[in-house]
């Protein structure tokens, strides 16, 4: 089923665009002719039953699929108008502009400070030790973690609770000053309270960043996002303003998923 270029009700400029994207794992097709715009400074949620390809699609945006040998991506994906699969593009630079937070928090076995300083260090973003410290503290504040760890920045990142670790990963991603943050089911391993904290965080983050989140929880998508895209069996069934998708979906499949009949 084809979808036309989706209309963006908010009238915001898309910071990333995808047109006719196919993704294959070897012979198996995981994503079939998907086109989607990602509006700037908003939260876009990708929803759908498990195995429908939403994570795969998400990983196209920062070319993380490159790390999987049998994965092939076809189509046109542009970041600020630039085709990110152009051979002239340096993927290392791309990933410093588009950050990622993973399903299970994966802090490095280093101190909290070093976890966050890692990105700025390799990209040489700081001019001095003080500047680096500033970046780390700012990132921690923006991730809403600073108050809880300010007195123990030298302790290992792995000594934090699950929810704190995930916020650490968010702070780590922020420290590189990206424009887009991709989140792959960031709360699926967390309890409701930690989840609530992170959802609140995402809301405050969208002023500075663009967020694309994959989630298996429709309620979460309804809570946090402004735009939602529904995936099913590798296809983009429907996308648009979150309120309309949930209260008045156009396609029957969307309606079935939202009412719990499928997935």
């Amino acid at each position, binding site marked *: 089923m084809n979808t036309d270029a989706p209309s963006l009700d908010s009238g915001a400029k898309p910071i990333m665009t995808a047109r006719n994207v196919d993704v294959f794992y070897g012979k198996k097709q995981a994503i079939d002719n998907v086109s989607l715009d990602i509006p700037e400074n908003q939260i876009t949620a990708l929803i759908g039953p498990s195995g429908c390809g939403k994570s795969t699609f998400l990983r196209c945006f*920062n070319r*993380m699929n490159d*790390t999987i040998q049998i994965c092939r991506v076809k189509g046109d994906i542009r970041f600020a108008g630039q085709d990110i699969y152009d051979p002239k593009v340096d*993927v*290392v*630079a*791309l*990933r*410093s*502009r588009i*950050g*990622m937070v*993973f399903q*299970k928090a*994966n*802090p*490095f*076995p*280093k101190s909290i400070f070093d976890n966050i300083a*890692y*990105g700025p260090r*390799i*990209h040489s973003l700081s001019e001095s030790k003080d500047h680096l410290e500033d970046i780390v503290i700012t990132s921690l504040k923006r991730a809403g973690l600073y108050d809880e760890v300010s007195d123990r920045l030298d302790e290992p990142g792995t000594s934090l609770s699950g929810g704190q670790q995930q916020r650490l*990963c968010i702070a*780590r*991603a922020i420290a*590189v000053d990206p424009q887009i943050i991709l989140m792959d089911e960031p709360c699926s391993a967390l309890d409701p309270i930690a989840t609530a904290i992170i959802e609140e965080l995402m809301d405050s983050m969208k002023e500075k960043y663009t967020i694309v989140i994959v989630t298996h929880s429709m309620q979460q998508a309804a809570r946090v996002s402004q735009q939602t895209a529904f995936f099913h069996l590798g296809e983009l069934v429907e996308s648009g303003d979150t309120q309309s998708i949930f209260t008045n979906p156009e396609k029957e499949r969307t309606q079935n998923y939202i009412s719990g009949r499928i997935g």
Partner: protein
Amino acid sequence: MEQSQDLTLRRSSRASQIREYAIQGALIACSLVAIFTTIGIVASLAFEAIRFFGKIPISSFLFGLEWSPQTAIRSDQVGASGAFGVLPLLTGTLLISFIAMMVATPLGLLSAVYLAEFANTKTRNLVKPMLELLAGIPTVVYGFFAALVVAPLIRGAGEGVGLQISSESALAAGSVMGIMLVPFISSLSDDVINAVPQALRDASYGMGATHTETVTQVVLPAATPGIIGSLLLAISRAIGETMIVVMAAGLAANLTANPFEAVTTMTVQIVTLLTGDQEFDSAKTLAAFAIALFLLVLTLGLNIIALKLVDKYKKKYA
């Protein structure tokens, strides 16, 4: 109904139960061989070593700076006093092991990292069996090559630059031993590096790090305890190695840190003391057991620390 079931159970059970127990007993007995072997080793070494320390005080063994094992045949013989200080042997062993590790560590670790992180499947399938081959070569072959080819080569090279290098230099024996250790370090480190979870690599890539930056700043630091464990196991192997040093290193004890000189090691002395025509009881032959006990304590100590490190590391990522 239940009555008859009970009977059926009871009838066949006795004979086969006895057989079950007998077989289990036999299996336990087999397993105890491992314990008996350890007890045997410790007992035989300790027993003879204690007899040695009855003739030579333990302090002069552990702290003596001279090793020239002579024993008097007659009580009035001139030059009857022998020196049985183990320190020159220890320093010789450590010098050669150090040189070996200087060769083996960079070669082994870089090979392991390349094969685990960068090489494609074809390369890995070609190179890994070749490294296994290197690991399977008997040490007597390494020793022969060291004595016949490497030592004269190093000596000649030294003469070329005006250096006096012994034909039994620690450098010759150490460098060949290093090559022998490369596959050992490489395969242990390979396991350790592969145990680092992919999630950490993904996190690093996601932030725009190059593959090398990911390896050097995330993977290797994460793998460090495991790698140190492998290195300790390699050092233990180097210390206990016999044939390469017997064939390529010297026989005279020499308290030095100069790689160009000839030194002797603990294992060389054990072989020398026990492969002559000695009666079993003399202080010379008993000295061999004392050295062996010392060697055993050293290598077991290293192994225990190494295994603890690797264990702790594996548990972190299990």
